């Protein structure tokens, strides 16, 4: 597996970079098309994703929801700010657990790197209240819930 790098900068910003052995068109599409998103965005056994909708145009909204199969779950909604085909996605998103967290701004760039793609994702860390809610949910439902949310945020 190609290595993942995660660096912090500024007050609470994180940049994640990762190389993929696939053309940037494919990596870009896998971030926008619900049929493809469903195949990689859910990692927790036992969890399902009943809602996965994207309106992939500038100003379009998306809606994802996860269900732990035991009455628990959470959702993420957001809006696309900029879509530069095969090169860049800028969006805002917030978690609903169930009250919405403050908007988080995320920029994902896809750079051609030989036959592959170098992905760089820049996000703001969730604020302390959102982190606390995620950890509280983990304490109540087991760490799986916290990890499920970490898997879901900022993709």
């Amino acid at each position, binding site marked *: 597996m190609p290595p993942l790098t995660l660096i912090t900068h500024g*007050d*609470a910003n994180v940049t994640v970079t990762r190389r993929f052995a696939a053309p940037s068109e494919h990596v870009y599409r896998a971030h926008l098309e619900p049929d493809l998103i469903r195949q990689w965005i859910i990692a927790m056994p036992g969890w399902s994703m009943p809602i996965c909708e994207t309106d992939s145009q500038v100003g379009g909204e998306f809606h994802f929801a996860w269900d732990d199969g035991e009455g628990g779950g959470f959702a993420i909604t957001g809006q696309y700010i900029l879509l530069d085909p095969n090169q860049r996605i800028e969006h805002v998103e917030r978690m609903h657990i169930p009250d919405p967290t403050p908007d988080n701004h995320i920029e994902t760039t896809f750079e051609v790197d030989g036959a592959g793609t170098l*992905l760089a994702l820049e996000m703001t860390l969730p604020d302390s209240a959102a982190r606390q809610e995620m950890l509280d949910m983990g304490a109540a439902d087991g760490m799986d819930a916290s990890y499920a949310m*970490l898997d879901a945020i900022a993709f």
Partner: protein
Amino acid sequence: MDCQTTAMLDRSFAALADPTRRAILLQAAQGEAGVMELAAPFEMSQPAVTRHIKVLTDAGLIKRRSQGTKRLCRLSPDGLDNIAPWLTMLSDAYGAKYNQLDVVLARMADGPT
């Protein structure tokens, strides 16, 4: 991660959000120093520097001790370690997710897309 760790993490991030405090922390990383020495490079009063040092101490980033009438400050490595578990969790989550994306991309290359 327990609640106490989370609370400390929040204080660490808040303390590190200020550029002056980051600079003081870098000074303290050079070795144990008094408040006056830490304040020397900055154009601010000693009470202002003392306040910044208190925030860093509360966040567990700096440890203080008295030597006679002198108050000495030094970097506390434990404090900086508090941020690491959170980032490790984030890194693990991205790692797992992107490994799965590799699988999806391989399928896209093989089949009709």
